[in-house]
Each structure stands twice: as C-alpha cells, then as structure tokens.
C-alpha cells in the first residue's frame, strides 16, 4: 500500500529524512514511532505529496505520488494532529468542501459517514462550537468520505483527554475490523501503538533504526523477575550452573535459551535459597523504545 524507497529530505542544510525505505502492506495497522523532529511528519508529508522529497521514490496505492498525485491519493484519507477546519462554517459544509477535492460526494454518503462517526444532529452547527472530541470525529468523517483504502493518521490523539484517546483507539480498531482499511499511525503514545499496531518502524533523527513486527520487539531477551532472600548469591549460583545470561537491578535475570523457571526454582531451593516470587517479565514497547534510543545515543 505504501512504498518508500531510499527517501531523502533536506531542509536547507538539515537532513530531515535520510535513506528511508519502508513498505506498509495492505490490511496492516502500521505504527510510525519517533521523538519530536525524528522525521515522522515529514515522511507523512512526502507520502501525501505535501513535501517534495530531495531524492527517492514514494508510491501510494501503486502510484508515484510526485508524478501521479491524483491517482495515488484517490483512495487515501488523512487526519493530522489538531485537525483544522473552517470554524465559521458548519460541520456539513466543511465535509462538503473537503470531500469535493477528491470527488463529488452525494448527500447520502455524507449523512452515512456523519452517522458512522456519531455526529448526527450536530452537523449543521458551526465547527467553532464543537468540542475537541467532536472535531476529532469530524476529522475522521472527512477522511472516510472518499471511501479510502488507506488511512494516514498523524498523531490523531494529540490534545485529547483520556476518554478521547480511548475513543480514537476503539475507532481505529473498528475501522480496521469493519472496513478493512490499511492504517498508518504516527504516534507518541507507545501504549497506543502497542495496542493497535502489528508492525512498527522507529525513526531517530531522520533515520529508520528499527522496522519489524511488534512481537519482534519483545523477543530480544527473556527477562525474569526473581524475588529471593539473597539476590546476589542466587545470581552467582545460577550463573555458575549456566542457567542465566545476565542479571540487572538486583531483581531481574535473563535465562539461557532452554532453561525454564521451574529449573531455576529447583536449583535455588536445593541450595537453600528461599524463592518468594518468580515471574516472566515481558518487555513493553516502551522498554524496547527507550533501549533503542539509548543505544542510538551511545552510537552517536
């Protein structure tokens, strides 16, 4: 659905995106992660033909965005952080205006989408009277009007309260489930990405530093939380028995491949070290992300 190939973007002397190659397959909810200024919005801008690439290729739905913008964006909807509207016009008029840039949209379709996003009854009110959540729904409505196959969401939860964030998350899942859309989600909210995406790419200072499935982010090391009488003694015993690869923070051990927690408990109990708690510690996306960023800082 989205193919970026060796994409570069320079603003003056600053390299905003460097050699970005990315492939988002159809039907996926794909997460784009990175700190502020990592190049996420620039990359999305290039996907939508708003930012000209310095070099490289951008193909959306099989069409080159630079050369064939019209065909490439025909089936694309987009939502940006803090969506902007013509506040002095009604929600309905905003939808009419924005959808007409893709194709003429029948009134029935507009009504259908308004109902889908839950704005029925407020469509004739001026947008300036809308709450933040209603604006987010209107943004979703305008993105859905052209029957998109691909939805690009740039920080869609930005500025929303916890309820709004939850609503956006549920809506994304619903869009994927009910309409089968391919979704590219750029977000700062790691737990949101963790709950929604099946695959992610992480950008750091314009470069992609990780690309893979969410499951792959959790398979780097197998950490186990161990609560014992004497952790130092326990760790040395386990290391001596070649049960562990590593230990950290006085409470975590990384097991050798093939070693189970039952073997650890058995060995420690046999050696007279009481075990109060042992549990698998699955790495969160946040742990993975922070470790990745720290690693990058050390490299730089």
């Amino acid at each position: 659905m989205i193919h970026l190939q060796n994409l570069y973007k320079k603003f003056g002397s600053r390299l905003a995106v460097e050699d970005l190659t990315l492939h988002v397959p159809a039907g996926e909810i794909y997460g784009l992660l990175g700190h502020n200024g990592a190049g996420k919005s620039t990359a999305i801008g290039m996907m939508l033909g708003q930012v000209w690439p310095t070099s490289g290729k951008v193909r959306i739905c099989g069409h080159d965005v630079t050369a064939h913008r019209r065909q490439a964006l025909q089936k694309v909807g987009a939502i940006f952080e803090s969506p902007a509207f013509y506040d002095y016009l009604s929600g309905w008029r905003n939808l009419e205006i924005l959808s007409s840039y893709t194709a003429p949209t029948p009134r029935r379709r507009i009504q259908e989408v308004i109902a889908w996003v839950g704005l029925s009854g407020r469509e004739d009110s001026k947008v300036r009277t809308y709450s933040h959540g209603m604006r987010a729904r209107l943004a979703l409505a305008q993105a859905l009007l052209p029957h998109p196959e691909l939805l690009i969401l740039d920080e869609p939860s930005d500025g929303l309260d916890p309820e709004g964030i939850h609503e956006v998350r549920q809506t994304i899942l619903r869009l994927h489930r009910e309409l089968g859309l391919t979704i590219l989600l750029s977000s700062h909210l790691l737990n949101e990405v963790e709950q929604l995406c099946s695959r992610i790419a992480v950008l750091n200072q314009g470069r992609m530093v990780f690309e893979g499935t969410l499951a792959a982010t959790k398979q780097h090391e197998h950490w186990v939380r161990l609560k014992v009488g004497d952790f130092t003694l326990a760790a040395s015993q386990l290391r001596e028995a070649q049960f562990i690869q590593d230990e950290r923070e006085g409470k975590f051990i990384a097991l050798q491949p093939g070693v189970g927690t039952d073997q650890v408990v058995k060995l420690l109990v046999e050696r007279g070290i009481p075990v109060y708690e042992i549990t698998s510690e699955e790495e969160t996306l946040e742990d993975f992300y922070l470790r990745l960023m720290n690693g990058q800082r050390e490299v730089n």
Partner: protein
Amino acid sequence: MFYRHFRNELWKLFGKKRTYIGFGAFILVQTGMLLMLRFGRVRADMERTLAGNGYLAQEYISALTVAVIMLIPQVALLMPLYAALVGGDLVAKEAEEGTLRMILSRPISRFRLLLMKWLAGVVFAALLVLVLGGTALGLARIWFPWKGMFVSWPGIGFNVLSVGTGFKLFLWSLTFMAVNASVTVGLAFMFSCFNMKPAAATILALSVLFVSIVLENIPFFESYKEWFPTYHFHTWIRIYSQPTPWDAVGQTLCILLALNLTTFLVGAAAFQARDIKS
C-alpha cells in the same frame, strides 16, 4: 469539478465575517463624505469652479459628480488596503490555520487550487467595486439630482458631461476600479503563496504599491511613469477625459491584465515549489 472547487472558495471567502468588515467601513466613510459634500464648504468650492468655467452649478453638481468625488479617496486609500487584506489571506491564512494541509492531503493539484482561489479573489474585487460604486451613487442620489456631471482632475482638465455619457463613463470607471482591485488582490495573493504570514503578504503588497506611487511622482521618473503599476490605476478617472482616450485605456487594460497574470504565475510557481508543513 471546476464549479465545485470554485464554489468552495466562494463559500470560504464569503462565509467569513472579516470579509464584510470592509464593506461596512466603506459605507461609513461614504456617508461621512456625503454629509461633508452636502453641508460643508466643498459644495461652495465646486460651485465656484463651475461658475469660473461658465457653467451653472445646479446643472452639474449632480449625483454622478458627487459619487465620483466620494470614490476618489476610497479608491486611493481604502480599496487597496482592503483588497490587499483579503488577497493576503487567500493562501497564507489557510496555511497558517492548517486547512491547507487538510486540502492538500486530497488529490487536487496545487495549480487548480490556486486558480480557484485567485478567481474567488477576482470575484471579490469585482463585488467590492460594485458595492462601492452602487452605494456611492445611491447615497449621492438622496440629496443630489440626476443630471449631467463634471470632473476636474490633474491631467484630464475640466470636463463637463451629459447625464447619458456621464453614467456610461461611470460604469466604465467602475470596471477599471475592479481591475485595479483585482491587481491589488493578485499582488497580495502572490506574496501569500510564499511561506509567510498573511499580514506579511498584505504589508508587502501595500509596500509595493506605496513605492510605486512614490516613484511615479518623483520628477526624475517622469519619463518612466508608465512602468509603475499605480500610474495605470488612475485610468478609472482618466476615462472621463473628453474625448476618452480609448487606445490608451485599452493599453492600460492590457498592462494591468498582464500584471495580474504575472503575479498569479509567480505565486503559482512559488506555491508549487514549497513544502506544506504543519
């Protein structure tokens, strides 16, 4: 699609209260001027000028004469200011508010979008002048008779016109005012296409006009004055010369239309090249 996109721009432009503030200001100023012309000393001065040229004042101090006099300061001061304000907003305001990014995530070409915006700007300029001319004439008619007119202006001298000729030339002068306003809108629109704030686009457009007026009036540039756009802006009043210099008027019209086209193309080129970011 052309119609829909054009209609969008008109909705956006005429949906804003800000668009109508200028109309209100014009009517206020016109009312003030009318009162001045009716009750102030200006009327006595006009009667003296007419009598000095051997004409009866009551025959030529008419609604048409008063309407043209009322239009002079507005065309020189208020209209450029207001046209530049609207022109400066056309692209830069949308870029500033983020709606441009919403539009450009859709499969519309930048050129088409700009063309529609520019056309909406031209419609606005024409409407502005129509309202300006219509209210000037309508207000003047309240106290002044529908008779022949006179126009006295540096460069065209003193001209007395019958009511029929006067009204025909009044309509022509409105056409030229609309062209002037569209050039000002176009100039501000051009700056608005660059990456800048709406106010900066407005100020730059007004600065260009101001510099043009200053240079045009410096004696050193007397032989070059036709190179300055504001020189051609005076055609709306020059049209009252007798006989009307239609060849020079046609030439001016071509120059102003070419200037309009140039500013549009420069703006379009700049807009095409720029990156649209939040």
